[in-house]
């Protein structure tokens, strides 16, 4: 695998200014994606995983303020680029796949026409070229009988087929990065398996990198080589999949791994994370996970812990990493 850097985000912050105050949805995250890599971003609703990617694409409403020290994509500096510039570039080089294909597709247009339209507007293709490319794309996403399928409207397709169409549109211009935001959450497991296999196959076929946003650790384990764990707008831990699944060090990651039953099927009580996620209008000054953390100390309430590097790839923010902090070990599963 080449290690060419595709995307680099440095200290990204996104704040929504709404009538009751400022929602600090993303609080200074830094992450990168290399070419040909699949990176998973895992977190619960409101952890900032989707907003951070929408910020990158500048797909947020006007009342969202986005700032970053640096955003580099394919060597281009997007930090201070205008919305139009970013959208033009991203429309071409970054594809997006959302959770709900039904709301992302135009119900009044046939599949074929809306796919062609994108190509004709973005790529200035002729009608005939666009039609040819659409057939090719439908084949690439394994839609059987593309000629008759493209004459159908979105409601005539099943959820899995619609998601294939969305993926086809996302890869229409051979993007170097596909951001998939909960692409299989609305689908049944057997269909989820089909879509994940398709995404994996596309990485090999067209060499695209993938950022997979999900709440499902199982989906990440099967797809991604690297994992970023978000909580309360911050990245609390990141590392190679093996590091996150086998030697996690952050209590929130422990909590996530323990709150799902293991495949072997034991009937011991699950260990839930107590409490509820933080209010991002007035986030606590300290570690966002402190109110729910079973190992919280006094210092955790005062300020955000700094980044501890455990390896070239494994990093986390937790005061338990400090010298003199109590030794708390991950038992590798439930007791």
């Amino acid at each position: 695998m080449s290690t060419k850097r595709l995307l680099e985000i440095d200290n990204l912050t996104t704040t929504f200014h709404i009538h009751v105050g400022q929602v600090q949805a993303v609080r200074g995250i830094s992450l990168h994606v290399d070419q040909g890599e699949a990176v998973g971003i895992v977190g619960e609703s409101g952890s900032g995983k989707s907003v951070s990617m929408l910020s990158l694409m500048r797909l947020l409403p006007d009342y969202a303020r986005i700032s970053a020290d640096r955003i580099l994509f394919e060597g281009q500096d997007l930090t201070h680029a205008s919305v139009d510039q970013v959208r033009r570039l991203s429309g071409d080089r970054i594809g997006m796949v959302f959770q709900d294909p039904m709301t992302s597709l135009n119900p009044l247009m046939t599949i074929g026409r809306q796919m062609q339209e994108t190509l004709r507007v973005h790529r200035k293709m002729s009608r005939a070229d666009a039609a040819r490319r659409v057939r090719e794309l439908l084949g690439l996403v394994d839609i059987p009988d593309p000629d008759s399928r493209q004459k159908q409207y979105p409601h005539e397709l099943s959820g899995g087929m619609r998601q294939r169409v969305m993926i086809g549109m996302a890869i229409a211009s051979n993007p170097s990065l596909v951001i998939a935001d909960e692409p299989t959450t609305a689908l049944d497991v057997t269909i989820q398996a089909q879509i994940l296999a398709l995404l994996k196959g596309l990485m090999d076929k067209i060499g695209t990198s993938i950022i997979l946003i999900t709440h499902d650790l199982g989906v990440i384990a099967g797809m991604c080589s690297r994992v970023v764990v978000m909580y309360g707008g911050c990245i609390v831990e990141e590392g190679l999949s093996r590091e996150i699944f086998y030697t996690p060090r952050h209590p929130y990651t422990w909590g996530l791994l323990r709150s799902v039953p293991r495949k072997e099927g034991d009937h011991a009580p699950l260990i839930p994370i107590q409490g509820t996620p933080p209010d991002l209008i007035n986030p606590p000054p300290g570690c966002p996970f402190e109110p729910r953390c079973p190992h919280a100390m006094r210092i955790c309430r005062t300020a955000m812990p700094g980044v501890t590097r455990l390896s070239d790839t494994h990093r986390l923010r937790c005061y338990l990493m400090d010298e003199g902090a109590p030794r708390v070990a991950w038992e590798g599963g439930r007791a």
Partner: protein
Amino acid sequence: MTAQPLIRADRVSMQFTVGSSITRARRRVLTAVDQVSLDIHRGETFGLVGESGCGKTTLGRLLVRLYRPTSGTILYDGQDITSLTPQQMMPLRRKMQMIFQDPYASLDPRMTVSTIIAEPLRRTDMDRARVDARVRELLTLVGLDENHARRYPHEFSGGQRQRIGIARALAAGPEFIVCDEPISALDVSIQAQVVNMLEELQQRLGFTYLFVSHDLSMVRHISHRVGVMYLGHMVEMAPVDELFTHMAHPYTQALMSAVPIADPDASAASQRIILQGDVPNPMAPPSGCPFRTRCPVVMPVCADQKPALLDIGGGHWVACHRVGT
């Protein structure tokens, strides 16, 4: 288990008429549940799994007689409730309750929490003070604060709302609770809280659950017995450990293998069976076995004959021509 089951469904079917009712020509019949039989014993959790549209929710609603089955019989504690009128059902209603999937849609936004929880108590002869005391007791039981009683649903998070829904289900002192996807709208860390609570309540109060879910790992965790449905049919049914270790139906095998495993090595090592295509249209189901259009081991006989659900020993039932012949 020789005791009389709390719930017994005998070849229960449910058909819905779909389409325009004026022009008869366009009216079509959708068989949501097709000849399903099952027993659920007291204190047991019966897990029901399957993909969307397989009829698992309809079956749950049939068992508490929210629907009247098109054919077949349903016994509750030995009593035939198949064709009871709503009035006749009334005394039984308090014994059977439901917990719904969407904690946002299932609570009336204009009612306070105490009104919501007290609703099932309205038809009882409890006086105001006793109802209030019962509401406070239920709130504590589901891990909420007594002071929450005067608040409205919008003031609560998804997990807390689900607790309110559970408190309402418990209010009338039920025996049998249908949990229809009770955790699928919740965040992972909250799901475990709710599942643990359901288990704890069962141990303390002896509830019988029908746990309907598409989350196989949670079903495996919480259930004693599990049934797998496909296109309105029960295709396999067995005690939980037997089902998960000796799954016999090709659909069950595909379904289990499709579940993502939160372990990179195990995930890489697992042999995935990826089914082709989608579930067929339930208004035009395939002839013979309902699964034959996607089955990786289909045989000619599968198109001609519908396989019967047969006991292959140890309470393990399978409907497949490949099994037991």
